[in-house]
């Protein structure tokens, strides 16, 4: 009998007859086995995309930003669209690991490790865009505030672009620390059961000499809790600050106070969609259906329908304010450049509406939330929609400036812009493939921690307790 107890009314988080050793076996199996052919195929496709990305960057750095189709008014195009898209995706991991930890959501334990990894890789991809967009990328260190011989001329601390530098780099560092501190005990598990010398050595280095001492666990718990507490406002602040890049400007279509909450909701929306895409593949390929259950998928779909609807309300509010403000330029941007299907970029606005607002409503139905095909299909649709959202915000606000003489020709990307975007996919999936092969994709220690309260077989054992009389229960189990 375990010392804690959870009602049988709650769905089990771990299915099957499992003890601690079985959990270790199940999660370590992919690490200790040879990768499958499919893994190699996927990995080499990812590396090929990455190479294409390198080539696109090489061309852009050699010949300048003119390799891209940015023009006199559309100064931000695919590059910043992709930047915001990737940063948004990078929000789900920390939301799952931090906010759901504070809210004591037990189901986070099955998915948090892979989601955090996804976050870190997505932020790495996002960071590429503003850096290479600088053009003279060898001057990138100018954003760092350090005493210099140029005056000293400091970075502008009042600029949202500098806030972004701080926000993204802090977010990346803190996510990495959070992720790695959780990985240490799991690396120790792999180290202690390693059968080859090389594995023992490498995982020994990665495990930092972890022993599992009670005092260390006590500190580890304290560290996780405080890092979760720090990451919670951090994850909200990052996309808020990304939205400030737009909202603090005076461009019609960007200059709105609704941006911070709207961006954060959108980020969580797209992040969860990406988590769904990856989890559905991961659980199938590695046979982790007992750990990443339909209950997990359903819980994430609930978050998707909630955040998708918040985003929908934000779109409608913007349209309303475009009319209510009676500002000609606001009205033109929202009602002509965006909502009019027959304007040059109208297709992107309605693509966004269809993907982000209309289609996720299907998740109000439980059957759909628990359907793997629908979930997988929707996760892709949502991410396409969220890409459209950023494209809409950036391009439709920029392509027609106040004066008709400042209206630009139709902006469409060059092969180098597309190549750069595909290259970040290569980076993301190269990292993710390596992660899924060499890292424990599920937090082993955390699953063990909740196993005896939420595991299916353990729940069955304590089932009798629920039939007990109040006083008897109080006497035997409640203290």
């Amino acid at each position, binding site marked *: 009998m*375990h010392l804690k107890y959870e009602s049988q009314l709650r769905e089990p988080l771990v299915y099957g007859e499992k003890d601690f050793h079985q959990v270790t076996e199940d999660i370590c199996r992919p690490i200790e086995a040879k990768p499958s052919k499919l893994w190699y195929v996927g990995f080499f496709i990812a590396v090929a995309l990455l190479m294409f990305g390198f080539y696109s960057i090489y061309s852009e750095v050699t010949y300048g930003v003119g390799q891209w189709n940015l023009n006199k008014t559309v100064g931000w195009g695919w590059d910043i669209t992709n930047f915001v898209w990737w940063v948004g995706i990078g929000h789900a991991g920390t939301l799952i690991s931090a906010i759901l930890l504070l809210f004591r959501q037990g189901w986070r334990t099955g998915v948090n490790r892979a989601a955090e990894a996804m976050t870190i890789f997505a932020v790495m991809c996002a960071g590429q865009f503003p850096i290479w967009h600088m053009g003279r990328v060898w001057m990138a260190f100018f954003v760092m505030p350090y005493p210099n011989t140029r005056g000293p001329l400091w970075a502008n601390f009042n600029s949202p672009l500098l806030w972004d530098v701080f926000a993204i780099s802090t977010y990346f560092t803190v996510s990495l620390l959070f992720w790695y*501190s959780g990985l*240490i005990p799991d690396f120790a598990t792999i180290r202690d059961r390693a059968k080859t010398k090389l594995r023992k050595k490498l995982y020994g280095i990665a495990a930092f000499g972890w022993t599992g001492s*009670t005092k260390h666990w006590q500190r580890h718990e304290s560290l996780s809790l*405080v890092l979760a507490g720090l990451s919670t*406002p951090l994850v909200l602040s990052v996309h808020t600050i990304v939205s400030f890049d737009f909202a603090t400007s005076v461009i019609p279509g960007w200059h709105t106070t609704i941006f911070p909450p709207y961006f954060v909701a959108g980020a969580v929306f797209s992040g969860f969609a990406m988590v769904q895409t990856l989890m559905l593949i991961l659980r199938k390929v590695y046979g982790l259906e007992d750990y990443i259950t339909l209950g997990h998928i359903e819980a994430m779909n609930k978050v998707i329908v909630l955040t998708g609807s918040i985003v929908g309300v934000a779109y409608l509010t913007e349209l309303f304010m475009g009319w209510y403000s009676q500002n000609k330029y606001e009205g033109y941007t929202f009602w002509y450049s965006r909502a009019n299907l027959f304007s040059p970029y109208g297709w992107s606005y309605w693509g966004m509406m269809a993907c982000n607002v209309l289609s996720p409503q299907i998740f109000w139905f439980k059957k759909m939330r628990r359907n793997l095909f629908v979930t997988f299909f929707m996760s892709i649709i949502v991410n396409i929609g969220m890409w459209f959202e950023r494209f809409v915000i950036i391009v439709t606000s920029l392509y027609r400036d106040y004066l008709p003489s400042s209206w630009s020709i139709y902006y469409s990307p060059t092969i180098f812009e597309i190549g750069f975007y595909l290259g970040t996919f290569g980076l993301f999936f190269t990292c993710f493939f390596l992660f899924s092969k060499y890292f424990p994709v599920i937090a082993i*220690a955390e699953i*063990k921690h909740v196993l005896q309260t939420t595991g299916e077989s353990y729940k069955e054992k304590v089932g009798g307790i629920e039939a007990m009389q109040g006083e008897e229960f109080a006497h035997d189990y409640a203290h």
Partner: protein
Amino acid sequence: MAKKKFVVGCFKEEAVLFPAVKKVRTAGYKIHDVYTPYPVHGLDHALGLRETSLHTAGFIYGITGTTTALSCISWILTSDWPLNFGGKPHFALPAWIPIIFEFTVLLAAVGMVLTFCYLCQLAPFLKKHHFHLRATDDYMVMAIECTAKTNVADLKAFLENAGAFEVNEQEAETQWWLGTYDKDQQLIRDTTIEIA
């Protein structure tokens, strides 16, 4: 280096471990440590460990970050190189809040993780004595330190009575937590159980 002797008992369930901890402590034995594969809540209290102050350290690091960012930015923008941004005040506190906040979080997180690693003596390439290799898999491993007075045979029997399903004797260097895996230590690292 000086070596110490330990009696090691393995447990599989929390419900057996907790009463055993109590029995061992009331009998007057000194529990060196209990190694568990996951954080067992309440075990720190059962062992009589004090609360960790790591969060206090985190708070101090955070405050340091806040004051550093605030003082640096205000010195830079008001006295070292005041720039005129559209006639706005040089001391533009609201515009600095994002960076001050981010820097607070950054310092708190980095500082806490480094402190955590320092306190737990965690670093790459560090090799420690492991009383049982399955302590990171499914066993809860209690190590009891033997003094000159301890009757090892009695202690072993006592542990078995308390519910340990596997009991053995081990030696470890006093400063084993900073030790290296040289050839001497290979001997004591080898526990009796084969890992399945």
